[in-house]
């Protein structure tokens, strides 16, 4: 009896594995195809698409702590903005204008901010945790406002410039280079994160999200793991910030704002928490929708966005991607 | 002739798309004591939850006394005289013991709380504690007492002995018998301790994968070794 079951199980696992591998490949392919489509269909709108990519990175990074670890935060732009300012400052003040080096600076800045934020935010849970993150983002914002000789204060940090990538591809008005640069960064990040969330460490984090006390009873330290995740998340957000700084050549206080933090959370929930593609689809759909309605009616589009959010909660309570994925999973099970 | 307190016809229910119960029917005379047995995961909890109005009902009819409660919400059924003690206990963690009991009163005066304290003196000692601070057994007592306070005519008990000390178990089973006999309460008991259940019940049903697999009296079950072996997975009953 038991033996029969064993063989059954050991055969079941590999099929699962194949399926998830296949799904990964399909996901990467989907990103590439969509990126290609974006390039071909909206050649005049690459600046927007690049911005979508930068924000996607922020939302992915938020998903790491919120979706996978259950940390509630409304201050995640602190990591993004720190990355953006780090990249901007090395360029504007130190003349380091190589885009790859600027990205590296963004990663470092974001990770450092992640360390600080993680240290503070992980001191409470639930609502108080949310408030800690809100307090932090305001502190970051205020700090950047005060340190105006470094950051340009509320006028923004201008004078950021980036050399051609590999000395060949120049950042132009049409935004071709920035877009391709962004797509490549995004792909690299998604592949790495895919590995990360599958790994034992990723599983540990999901466990922490559900019941940190239980994890402790298994001998692991939730705090240490979450800290680690926060730093990784900071690095990812830093890539987004750096991309933003490189492609727009200015960094404003808005990149450290509560508004951006809240918006990124909205995008994440819209797509569906706890899955990378949820984060991506949420960002893309929200930003394109917003761009579309705000261009169609610059005066009253907020109502439309509000209606979209309400509709999503009513008809796709797990987020757009989450609900779709659940639907297909059920279909497959029914087969 | 008065209507039967509980009458279940062809019940099918489950969770979302997962069907758990299939075509369960039975009916109970007033003051009856029914034991529901079955192995792990066979749908006992689901059956009680469905009667209490907490799962998705696909098909079938539930009558409580003279009224059809199939379409009624959980609260309405409670007002029709249904009492439910769930397996998970479901203590209100942020309410004190006294407040927990108060919710079960269904509008009876506050003095009735004494009944619960008489049944479980332990609860009286801890009445200002929050539900979340109780020990496992205390929670079980609270859960049972809370429902009984509402004076239900049909009482659904899902493993009410779990986690209780042997003395308390005895006292509690005696109290249930008393309620059934003098209080005119009809009781459905799900219990893993087969012997306790059989000592208590006058009717037994056994569930197997969501279907009724055996119906009869405790005595009949004691002699049906095959059913005991096959449906309950234990060697025999003493």
């Amino acid at each position, binding site marked *: 009896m038991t033996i029969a079951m064993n063989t059954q199980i050991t055969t079941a696992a590999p099929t699962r594995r194949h399926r998830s591998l296949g799904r990964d490949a399909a996901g990467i392919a989907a990103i590439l195809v969509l990126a290609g489509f974006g390039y071909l269909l909206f050649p005049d709108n690459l600046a927007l698409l690049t*911005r979508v990519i930068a924000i996607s990175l922020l939302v992915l990074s938020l998903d790491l702590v919120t979706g996978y670890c259950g940390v509630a935060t409304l201050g995640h732009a602190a990591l993004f903005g720190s990355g953006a300012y780090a990249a901007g400052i090395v360029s504007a003040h130190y003349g380091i204008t190589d885009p790859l080096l600027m990205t590296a600076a963004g990663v470092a800045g974001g990770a450092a901010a992640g360390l600080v934020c993680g240290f503070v935010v992980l001191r409470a849970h639930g609502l108080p945790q949310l408030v800690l993150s809100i307090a932090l983002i305001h502190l970051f914002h205020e700090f950047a406002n005060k340190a105006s000789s470094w950051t340009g204060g509320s006028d923004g940090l201008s004078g950021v410039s980036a050399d051609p990538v590999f000395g060949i591809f120049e950042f132009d008005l049409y935004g071709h280079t920035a877009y391709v640069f962004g797509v490549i960064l995004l792909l690299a990040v998604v592949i790495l994160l895919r590995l990360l969330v599958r790994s034992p460490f990723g599983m540990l984090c999901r466990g922490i999200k559900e019941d940190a006390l239980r994890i402790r009873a298994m001998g692991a330290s939730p705090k240490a793991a979450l800290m680690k995740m926060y730093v990784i998340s900071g690095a990812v957000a830093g890539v987004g910030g750096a991309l933003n700084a490189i492609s727009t*050549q200015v960094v404003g206080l808005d990149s450290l704002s509560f508004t951006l933090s809240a918006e990124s959370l909205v995008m994440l929930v819209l797509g569906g928490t706890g899955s990378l593609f949820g984060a991506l689809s949420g960002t893309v759909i929200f930003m394109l929708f917003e761009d579309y309605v705000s261009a169609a009616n610059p005066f009253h589009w907020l109502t439309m966005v509000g209606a979209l959010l309400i509709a999503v909660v009513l008809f796709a309570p797990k987020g757009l991607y989450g609900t779709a994925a659940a639907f297909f999973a059920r279909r497959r099970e029914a087969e | 002739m008065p209507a039967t307190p509980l009458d279940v016809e062809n019940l099918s229910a489950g969770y979302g798309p997962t069907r758990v119960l299939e075509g369960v029917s039975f009916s109970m005379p007033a003051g009856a004591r029914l034991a529901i047995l079955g192995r792990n995961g066979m749908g006992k909890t689901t059956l009680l939850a469905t009667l209490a109005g907490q799962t998705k009902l696909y098909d079938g009819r539930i009558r409580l006394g003279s009224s059809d409660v199939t379409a009624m919400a959980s609260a309405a059924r409670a007002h029709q005289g249904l009492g439910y003690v769930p397996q998970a206990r479901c203590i209100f963690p942020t309410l004190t013991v006294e407040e927990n009991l108060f919710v079960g009163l269904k509008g009876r005066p506050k003095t009735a709380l004494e009944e619960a304290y008489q049944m479980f003196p332990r609860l009286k000692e801890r009445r200002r504690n929050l539900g979340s601070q109780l020990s496992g057994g205390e929670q079980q007592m609270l859960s049972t007492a809370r429902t009984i306070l509402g004076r239900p005519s049909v009482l659904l008990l899902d493993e009410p002995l779990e986690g209780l000390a042997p003395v308390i178990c005895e006292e509690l089973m005696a109290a249930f018998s008393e309620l059934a006999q003098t209080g005119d309460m009809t009781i459905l008991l799900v219990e893993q301790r087969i012997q306790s259940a059989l000592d208590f019940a006058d009717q037994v049903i056994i569930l197997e994968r969501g279907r009724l697999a055996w119906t009869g009296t405790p005595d009949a079950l004691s002699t049906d070794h095959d059913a005991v072996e096959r449906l309950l997975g234990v060697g025999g009953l003493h």
Partner: protein
Amino acid sequence: DTIKVGVVGPFSGPFALQGKNFKAGIDAYMATNGAKIGDNTIEVIYRDLPAADPAQSKALAQELVVKEKVQYLAGFYFTPDAMAVTPILKQANTPLVIMNAATSAIVTKSPLVVRTSFTLWQTSTPIAKVAFDKGVKKVISVVSDYGPGVDAENAFKAGFEKAGGEIVEAIRMPLATNDFSPIMQRIKDSGAQGVFAFLPSGPTTLGFVKAYDENGLKAGGIQLFAPGDLTQESDLPALGDAALGMLTTFHYAVSHDSPENRAFVEATGKALGNPSELTFPAVGAYDGMHVIYKMIEATGGKQDAEKAVEAVKGLSWTSPRGPVSIDPESRHLTQNIYLREVTKDAGGKYINKEIQVFEKQGDPGLAAMK
């Protein structure tokens, strides 16, 4: 042909009122002067930028240039948003007409920038002289802690100290201040005879002016001086009697008495639907459109940013706010700055009444930068 003008402004969000006034100013100008220049039809394309967000600003400007093929960029309420766009102007071959953003430095970022609004240096410098002439020798400065606030503080300080007065204290308070009572207490304790204040127009000004009144500063004879943002006309009914007698300097008052302004107020009132919502960005937008029209005339509808900007250098005309001209060197507007007092007009409506004119004011901020 159709000539497109891309306008970026806050059409929704907390500053929606000012965005609405951009549109009203533009609509009013086009309604008065027609949407055609020669064979060319002017089309305005609006893009919403609810709060300062340079990255988004740049993305929108790029989209307007690349996709919508606009020949002119205009609007911009916030400085960083305008700053973000200056680097692309040359490659895009588009002039940028700033209709509000008020930091002096913007015009230096690109030779293709022309500004038809004002700077805080421009509006805050004259009030220093007014204060000194009123016999106030010690002033405390209270500003919101962000770029424009700092500009206003510096401008007033420079002007006031030059006149011989003393700034006893300079307070910068967070933008999101709700309760101004402690600030008022500070002012009282400072021993100053007057206050210079700058807050961005909007909800906080109400709290500030009320606190000034209710905490007994007004009654105590501590005079309040401010640039006109504090008493923009749409806020006056809410400020009510608390604002009566306040002295502000600004480039535009709705009550300005001239035929041009009467026509303007009527036209914008129509465009707004509710005339009491008229605020200063409307006049910046109105004059901005004037400049763009002149540019289009000069280039004959061809896209040539340099020629267009060249054509309006030194341009002078009578705006609803009074006589103005574009300084050929800085491409910023030289205009009259008026000292106004809040009073009630004959109909019982609160107005900013012009009581003194400082003629042909340039931008002292640019000089200060050097």
